């Protein structure tokens, strides 16, 4: 049983279709890219996995999302524990209004880690994993806002990793970054994929080529095709996938 | 467990806070409505006070209703003449990026904060100095001071929401600044501007402190700019001050009339805003 499995999941926004009934299993310990043109429902799909969709007014979810075998849409689900398991890297880096250190320590503190030494270790370790330690170790207590966008996004990655998730949900994590910063973030994701199940939403085909081991292609609210990356890119079965991969539709 | 407890505790607290504020305000409206409705009748709104009115004789507060409308309408019109240019000026198309705009904004904030009683008292001194007595004109001047900053600030906020690209589309067609303002900006902003005007009007008509000395009080209908006028807030205030329960009851009725006028204007401004926005290109 993989960490993430989706059964008959569908979303409607005030009657309009977000995406149609979808069943899929996300393979562990690799990067799964969700590709498709904007508005195809891929971000909505991602938001269902950690139930952030709950905060969207008018959205109705049907079906099941199994995280480690438990349906997270069962009533009585502990949202806090669930979201601790699933880290999120959003489109724009969303740093919290506090220092660099406190951004990383935020999650562990919430979940009960209080000892300073322990927090220091976590902050250092995760900033190193995110490849940011060298750049910020001498100004940990300055506002996170002062970092460049690319650094902010890596900070968000470190912050997400600090709560020791099993899954990383990435919603176009490089969309607002310059090419160099994007490269940094991509490198990190490749390094992390042996330990985490990574779901990467992207509308950049080339990024999916570079990073993905497994690919889901969504089109107009429908999961059209899924498969290992090389197979899907070199030999798509569905016509729409072929057109999208070839660049004739977008 | 402690986390769950804190979560539930504060959520309850927040809900209670909101309910208590809204509840208290609803209670206020109910108390005024119930007490006011008892003394309210056709005579109250259709006649001026007769000789023995303040000794519980006959008559009504038509003088105050018309007086308040005259004061607030005139003051609002005068305030528009200043507030609209100031709001236009504060856009980047005119002086918005200059140092002078910072000055104007600062002083506008200051004017906005000055208590109406200060305007009233100062206005009165000024009138004495100029040999004027309490009159419609004096009240209008004091009320204009009260309304101007409210209106200008609200208008500026409305104009700030006009997208740059919309103005640029007009400039790109060769329109001058004024033409862009006149035909694009003001049109797009019209619903918001109307709301701003009515907001200021509502504040003006309900203000007692500013007109207390400047407008005076009279049992007559407003006749000229240079004679005293009555106003509803002061009608409430003075009638409450008499020792006769019947007259005090009329204060409740006057308060209800005032409350209804203010609420109707406020609701109207919202509806009007929606009506006027039919040509708007952006939501």
């Amino acid at each position: 049983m993989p960490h993430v499995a989706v059964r008959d999941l569908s979303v409607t926004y005030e009657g309009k279709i977000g995406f149609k009934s979808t069943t899929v299993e996300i393979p562990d310990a690799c990067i799964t890219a969700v590709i498709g043109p904007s508005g195809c429902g891929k971000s909505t799909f991602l938001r269902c996995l950690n139930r952030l969709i709950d905060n969207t007014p008018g959205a109705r979810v049907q079906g099941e999302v199994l995280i480690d075998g438990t349906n997270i849409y069962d009533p009585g689900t502990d949202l806090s524990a669930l979201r601790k398991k699933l880290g999120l890297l959003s489109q724009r880096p969303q740093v919290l209004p506090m220092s660099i250190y406190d951004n990383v320590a935020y999650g562990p503190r919430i979940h009960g880690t209080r000892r300073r030494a322990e927090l220091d270790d976590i902050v250092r370790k995760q900033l190193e994993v995110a490849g940011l330690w060298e750049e910020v170790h001498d100004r940990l207590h300055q506002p996170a806002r002062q970092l460049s966008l690319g650094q902010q996004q890596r900070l968000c990655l470190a912050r997400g990793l600090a709560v020791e998730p099993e899954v990383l949900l990435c919603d176009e994590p490089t969309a607002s970054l310059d090419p160099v910063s994007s490269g940094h973030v991509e490198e990190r994701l490749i390094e992390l994929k042996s330990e985490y199940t990574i779901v990467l939403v992207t509308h950049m085909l080339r990024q999916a080529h570079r990073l993905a081991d497994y690919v889901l292609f969504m089109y107009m609210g429908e999961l059209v095709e899924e498969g290992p990356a090389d197979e899907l890119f070199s030999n798509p079965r569905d016509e729409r996938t072929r057109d999208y991969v070839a660049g004739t539709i977008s | 467990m402690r986390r769950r407890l804190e979560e539930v505790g504060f959520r309850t607290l927040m809900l209670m806070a909101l309910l208590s504020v809204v509840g208290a305000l609803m209670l206020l409206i109910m108390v005024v409505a119930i007490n006011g409705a008892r003394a309210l009748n056709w005579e109250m709104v259709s006649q001026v006070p007769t000789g023995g009115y303040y000794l519980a004789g006959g008559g009504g507060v038509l003088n105050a209703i018309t007086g308040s409308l005259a004061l607030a309408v005139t003051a609002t019109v005068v305030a528009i003449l200043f507030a609209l240019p100031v709001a236009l000026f504060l856009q980047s198309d005119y002086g918005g990026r200059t140092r002078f705009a910072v000055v104007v904004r600062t002083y506008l904030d200051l004017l906005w904060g000055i208590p109406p009683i200060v305007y009233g008292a100062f206005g009165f001194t000024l009138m004495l100095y100029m040999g004027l007595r309490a009159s419609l004109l004096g009240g209008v001047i004091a009320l204009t001071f009260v309304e101007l900053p409210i209106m200008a600030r609200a208008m500026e906020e409305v104009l700030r929401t006009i997208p740059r690209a919309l103005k640029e589309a007009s400039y790109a067609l060769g329109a001058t600044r004024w033409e862009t303002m006149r035909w694009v900006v003001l049109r797009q902003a019209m619903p918001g501007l109307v709301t701003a005007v009515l907001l200021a009007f509502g504040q003006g008509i309900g203000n007692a402190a500013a007109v207390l000395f400047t407008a005076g009080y009279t049992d007559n209908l407003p006749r000229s700019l240079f004679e005293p006028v009555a106003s509803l807030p002061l009608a409430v205030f003075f009638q409450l001050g008499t020792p006769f329960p019947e007259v005090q009851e009329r204060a409740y009725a006057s308060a209800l009339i005032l409350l209804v006028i203010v609420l109707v204007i406020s609701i109207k401004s919202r509806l009007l805003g929606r009506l006027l926005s039919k040509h708007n290109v952006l939501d």
Partner: protein
Amino acid sequence: MISRIFPRLMQERSATATIWLLSFAVPLLTVGLAIGLTLRSLPILRDNSLIDLLTRTTWRPMAGEFGFLPFIVGTIAVTLVAMVISAPICLLAALHLAEYAGSQTRTLLRPLVDLLAGIPAVVYGLFGILVVVPAVGRYIAPFAESHLYFVPWLSPQQHATGYSILAGGMVLALMVSPFIISVAEDALQAIPVGVREASLSLGATSWETSKYVSLRAALPGLVGAVVLGFSRTLGETMAVLMVVGNVAQIPESIFDSAYPLTALIANNYGEMMSIPLFDSALMLASLLLLVVVAFFNFAAQMLVLAVRKRAGE
């Protein structure tokens, strides 16, 4: 061609000139007001030192004694009571409205709050006389007398009529609350959704997100809301005048009557002409109000700037 452009150009120029010219009115009016008030308060300052005026407690205009302290204390006391009551309640209510209420509740309540912010002061004053004053006199004061007699400020020192600092504070708290809620909610709404979601996705609960993220991110706006509410309360006249009792004394508890500066001006202005210096004294009172309000506006802006700098924006 020129003939067609010319009127347009003229129109453009005159419009620009008008707009600039009328904008000068704002600073001119303000400065004129300040100068006028200062000039009119000079006579009393010539005979008395400002320090004396502000610290003396006797108010006997007929004898030429003008001690402002009771009025200053009255203003501060009423304003503080109002803020102690309204600030926490309003911030919690705004938080609920911004982050917990469903979208339907919000679309219903938000316009209602704005609507209530427009209710005239005399109506609040009337409500104070009909409901708040009797409640204080009949229930709250006796309760405090029997249960809180050991707490300074909170136990009635004399027979309580209800016309008191507490009644004034409560009426003002109610009056200023739609305003504070409205400004505070705007500040909370301005926080990007993504920041809250970032916190939620780390497993923080809604309240934890509000506490550590929203309150922090919106702090400048929330501080601004409270300070603006404070300065509004300070200058309110009619509502407080009607319920606060208007006795020129240094109050010993919140159940005593007080006499705020605004009420002093409103109650005495008509009759001041016959007494020497009275009119100058009241102008000085107006000037004091103006200076204090200007100070708080300034302080609010500085605070907002300082907080913003610390947040690194």
